[in-house]
């Protein structure tokens, strides 16, 4: 197999608790630390490991969004991707539009495999991999915790509600990563320096002939209902008493 395509997303860092804007128009993400979506780090790591094993020859990282997504792509290059593509737009790009942009890139690059995160931790949609597979008419293996590529097939262990499930898919295919697939490596300073010299191609959605106009309208974004303040109990006896007599849950 020659190429692996790995879509990555720039999101608000996973440890930041976002605040809803007071006018309910969205969450306040200005001046908040952004990072690569954690599932996408796992995807890049898996692609780079496949390359290190000799199963693939080239890893291409792709991101769609604002110019700052370049930093996310440089991180992917520092982990070990060979080159990067930024599809730049300042518009909100919803999952269906992302899948369409990626479909256009799949047509252009003809990768043997697409590996991507199972969901982005900002919109929590969990759609793009499956939608891309549908648009490109490829099989899919979602929520992967183990991937083995051999010949024209991949055998993937998937995390499902009742435990684990193993399927094989013919290649090319779309694989989405779950948390336990691997432990992404730390990027080292020499690799960050090297990543600066790797090629990064800049495209616009129009270049790919894709309309990214949002299809879902967000009417408002509000705070989740607040829980009323709880109490600390001094000992186990008091806890049992509260559960039995106050909350009446046991």
């Amino acid at each position, binding site marked *: 197999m020659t190429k692996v395509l790995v879509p990555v997303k720039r999101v*608000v860092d996973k440890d930041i*608790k*976002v605040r809803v804007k007071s006018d309910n128009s969205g*969450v306040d993400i200005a001046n908040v630390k952004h990072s690569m979506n954690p599932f996408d780090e796992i995807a890049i790591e898996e692609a780079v490991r496949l390359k290190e094993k000799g199963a693939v020859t080239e890893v291409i990282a792709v991101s769609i969004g604002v110019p700052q997504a370049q930093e996310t792509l440089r991180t992917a290059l520092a982990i070990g991707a060979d080159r990067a593509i930024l599809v730049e737009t300042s518009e909100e790009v919803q*999952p*269906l539009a992302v*899948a369409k942009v990626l479909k256009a890139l799949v047509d252009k690059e003809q990768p043997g495999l697409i590996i991507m995160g199972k969901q982005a*931790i*900002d919109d929590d*949609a*969990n*759609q793009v991999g*499956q*939608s*891309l*597979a*549908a*648009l490109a008419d*490829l*099989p*899919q293996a*979602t*929520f992967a*915790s183990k991937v083995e590529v051999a010949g024209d097939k991949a055998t993937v262990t*998937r*995390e*499902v*509600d*009742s*435990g*684990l*499930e*193993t*399927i*094989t*898919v*013919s290649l090319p*295919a779309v694989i989405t990563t779950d*948390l*336990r697939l691997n432990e992404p490596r730390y990027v080292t300073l020499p690799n960050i320096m090297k990543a600066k010299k790797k090629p990064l191609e800049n495209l616009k959605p129009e270049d790919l002939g894709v309309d990214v106009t*949002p*299809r*879902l*309208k*967000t*009417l408002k974004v*509000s705070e*989740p209902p607040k829980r009323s303040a*709880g*109490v600390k*109990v001094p*000992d*186990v*006896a008091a*806890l049992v008493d*509260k*559960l039995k007599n106050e*909350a009446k*849950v*046991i």
Partner: protein
Amino acid sequence: MTTLVIAEHDNAGLKAATLNTVAAATAIGGDVHVLVAGHNAGEAAKAASQIAGVAKVIHADGAALENGLAENLAAQVLAIVENEAEGYSHILFPSTASGKNVAPRVAAKLDVAQISDIIKVVSTDTFERPIYAGNAIATVQSSDGKKVITVRATGFDAAAASGGSAPVESVAAVADSGKSSFVGREVSKSDRPELTSAKIIVSGGRALGSEEKFKEVLTPLADKLGAAIGASRAAVDAGYAPNDLQVGQTGKIVAPELYIALGISGAIQHLAGMKDSKVIVAINKDEEAPIFSVADYGLVADLFTAVPELIEKL
């Protein structure tokens, strides 16, 4: 206006999340049809026909549908909804591993924007869904002709599993796509209540220290309370518990009557999975742990002494 609910089942019977999804369909209004696509799944179809509020069950039975492979199941759903005579306006999947796997495939083929993980129906085209690990609730409106939606089970009370008597209509099953095949399954065996539908959940974190301690501390308490056992990501990553017990943004979303968090610090990603529980109890040595900010009752104590004492007093 007719809604098609895609049943989740194991061929022998329905999974609980199907009932919550039917409830969401009922909240949208109009007729509710249920698709049972599987192999030798007659019993599941029969169970679906008895759900209160269901007008019709569509039963597709074929070998290609036995294991719920996304390619085949999506093709089956499309074969039904693309039949314009039916005119389905809404297509609902439970937001489970299976529903999440298949729904976006259907949505993309229909060229519509899927609405993931809804927790509330505002109107026929407007829905609420959590974003940013549940730290914000977005109200979204869809102008697509067909709405493909996944339903968060804990957002809707289950429809009654009996009382209905819908007719079951058989339709031809799709052929195998040939693009994927099922190899095997490792099901975690448990005689406890299922995590996502349990009334009480006892959940353990990294502070348990080992797989042995995790079992030793949690099992007797869960037995005493008739509770399901859950785990934080830290506990799963450390190998103390299998991954299907993980509660959180990337694991299972639960909302039991009582959630007891033992040795769980309360990271954003964990809270995303349990903060809609009715009563939350936290036992943790660290009084600064974020879990105490959502706990109704907090006990600052060493769980290795507090839990045995708790069992004794129950």
